[in-house]
């Protein structure tokens, strides 16, 4: 799903359904959501959502495409989001494509954090084939 359509659903009114991928859950593949996803377990693959929270203790490997991403756990891959918050205790490897980012003290980032203008995310129909 292109981010532009995600943007529409997010603006059209927040879906108050929050999906929880629990501690003991392991997902392999594509996770698509119009609302919010809280990851506490393991996800390998891709997450498309309006808002993604990677909780402490969680592990995500792959790509996250969202409007807002909050990471407190481990992440390995690429993040494409307008707003990114990297919390204390987080460990991020890879790239964080962002428009606004906030990194808390105590977070670990290994990789690059390229800035992009907002329209880059709105027109993000296909992810670039970049490899770190």
């Amino acid at each position, binding site marked *: 799903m292109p981010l532009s359509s995600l943007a529409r659903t997010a603006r059209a009114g927040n879906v108050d359904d929050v999906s929880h*991928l629990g501690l003991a*859950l392991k997902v392999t593949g594509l996770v698509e959501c119009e609302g919010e996803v809280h990851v506490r377990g393991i996800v390998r693959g891709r997450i498309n959502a309006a808002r993604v929270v990677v909780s402490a203790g969680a592990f995500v490997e792959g790509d996250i495409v969202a409007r807002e991403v909050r990471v407190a756990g481990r992440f390995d891959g690429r993040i494409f989001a307008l707003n990114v918050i990297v919390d204390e205790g987080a460990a991020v490897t890879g790239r964080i494509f962002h428009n606004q980012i906030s990194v808390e003290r105590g977070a670990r980032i290994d990789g690059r954090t390229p800035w992009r203008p907002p329209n880059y995310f709105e027109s993000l129909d296909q992810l670039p084939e970049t490899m770190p």
Partner: protein
Amino acid sequence: MTMFSRSDKPAEPAASPQPPRPQAAAQPLAPAPAPARPQASSSPVAGVSVISKALKITGQLESTEDIRIDGEVDGDVRGLSVTIGQGAKVKGTVYGDAVEVAGAIDGRIEAKKVVLTATAHMEGDVVHQDIRIESGAYIDGHCKPEYGKTVAKPANKPAENVKAS
């Protein structure tokens, strides 16, 4: 938020031996960091996974605990207790100790205890030890009782994987 928590830390040790009430009244900033923490870790119960209506998963889902699906899953689901809510769609095999279906499954169920409620729509075989089918449920497939072979194996396998990785 960062600024708040930083300015609070040096202030707190001095104030903490005092009775807590005046401290809370004097420091309006103190409660601010508190809601920020649960926000990242707020969840009804840590182990339960909820796949909400707006969510679609393409791929595999494995859990050693309960899973509730209200959205769409295209792939296999393994859990201890799996609940397929009304309006949910699953395309693939559902493994579990207890599986309750109120939504639609196109695939297969392998579980000890299977409940098909009135709104269930099941296309495919059901391998079970114990089954309950409510009036109104739709099934297109075989119901096979099976003892010993499929039991407990699916639920236990993911546990080792999760711990190892």
